[in-house]
């Protein structure tokens, strides 16, 4: 099916109607595009990122510097990470992957209408085919947000604003499932997580399989794929060789694990694409980016 249209109108559509929220989807042709590289990260969990004997950038991260500062080329938006060597198993990957690309460039757009945040991801499906890990879903896309409150303690006990510095890496630990030697039941988590203090990530996900499915959850002391009430819709489609996934999310949130977003503020986000039937850590992930609601940021959602 060349033009597979897979739409999810998760419950949210009905909720939107009930609350009178207008689904004024933006004219995407007029919204600025921010290129973001997603890459195969291997087994580079947060513990590796923070370990200076392994990762030369750890000293910067411990000072709160952002991954993008060193790893993203501000002109090309490509990343300076040897994802090809990771994929080939030369470093950080005990299970080399054949038939997959190391980096995918994604066009990211964002907008808001005062009630909803709209996020659009658009990328060309890369060539190649690796072993199927998730037979039900050729593609999945997950986005995590946090409200500048996620912290992680370094080896000296100093708190680092890891959500700001490293995006999703705040949830990615070397003892979580699919990591080498890890417990297969242990999901992503935030160290010292607390929904009350804001030390957690909000999570939304779109899956391509079985007509499309969406989830609105969060990552605190474990990953929970339900409880959120912010996601209005998640839609995905493939035109030719290009995937487009669009999320509509209530700015105000409202459910468990939903962060409330307001105009004029920026938040931290990261996203991951499970491309080519991949699963677990074998995804392509972005570094951490700021998302501004009518505010200047890496990705700005303007009205």
């Amino acid at each position, binding site marked *: 099916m060349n033009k597979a249209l897979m739409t999810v109108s998760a419950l949210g559509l009905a909720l939107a109607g009930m609350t009178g929220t207008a689904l004024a989807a933006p004219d995407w042709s007029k919204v600025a595009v921010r290129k973001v590289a997603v890459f195969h990260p291997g087994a580079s969990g947060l513990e590796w990122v923070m370990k*200076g004997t392994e990762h030369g950038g750890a000293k910067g991260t411990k000072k709160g*510097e952002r991954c993008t500062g060193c790893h993203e080329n501000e002109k090309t938006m490509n990343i*300076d990470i040897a994802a090809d060597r990771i994929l080939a198993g030369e470093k950080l990957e005990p299970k080399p992957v054949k038939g997959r690309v190391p980096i995918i460039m994604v066009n990211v757009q964002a907008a808001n209408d005062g009630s909803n945040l709209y996020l659009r991801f658009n990328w060309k499906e890369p060539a190649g085919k690796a072993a199927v890990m998730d037979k039900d879903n050729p593609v999945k896309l997950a986005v995590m947000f946090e409200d500048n409150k996620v912290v992680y303690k370094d080896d000296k006990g100093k708190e680092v604003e890891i959500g700001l510095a490293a995006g999703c890496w705040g949830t990615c630990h070397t003892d979580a499932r699919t990591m080498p030697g890890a417990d297969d039941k242990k999901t992503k988590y935030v160290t010292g997580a607390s929904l009350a203090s804001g030390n957690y990530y909000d999570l939304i996900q779109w899956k391509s399989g079985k007509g499309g499915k969406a989830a609105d959850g969060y990552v605190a002391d474990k990953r929970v794929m339900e409880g959120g009430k912010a996601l209005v819709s998640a839609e995905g489609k493939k035109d030719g060789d290009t995937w487009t996934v669009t999320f509509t999310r209530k700015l105000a949130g409202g459910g468990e694990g939903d962060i409330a977003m307001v105009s004029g503020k920026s938040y931290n986000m990261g996203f991951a694409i499970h491309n080519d039937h991949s699963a677990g850590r074998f995804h392509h992930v972005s570094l951490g980016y700021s998302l501004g609601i009518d505010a200047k940021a890496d990705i700005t959602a303007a009205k």
Partner: protein
Amino acid sequence: MVASNWWAKLRSPSVKYSLLTLSGVGFISGILFWGGFNTGMEATNQLEFCISCHEMKDNVYQEYTKTIHYSNRTGVRAVCSDCHVPKDWTHKMIRKIQASGEVWGKITGSIDTREKFEAKRLQLARSEWARMKASDSRECRNCHSFDGMDEEKQINRAAKQHANARRDNMTCIDCHKGIAHNKPEGMTEDEAGG
């Protein structure tokens, strides 16, 4: 008695040779001595000399040959002494005298097996890191300098890290450990520059 005669003879003026002859012979002998000394000194600075011991050849040399200081686009090679022996005479002499202790290590076989070498690698590395730190990475700076770096031509993370290092008054070896040899097991986060 004999010694004092010999000393007196040395101190008494020559009755046989002219001042010119004595000065000439002294000058030429000095050149020969100095030339020989320096040649010997230079010989011990050659890569071939360093790897004439299997302790170096089988361990650190093998690691070094896989790094950019051994093989690179421009063909400029930094050999052992470029990093491990100072260039200026005073510091070179001090280092050479210190290195004579390594001869004792060779005689006693302190690192004559792979196992012994690995067991001592961290101690050896720490000793060299401390020497480099104390000299503000003098040997690195024989070739590299912050002023000579064109940040526009560096990849982002290099430019960023060097800007941070400059700001924090760091020295090359603070970060650049394990660039020519494997990092030792057991090095601490502080030693990693964190």
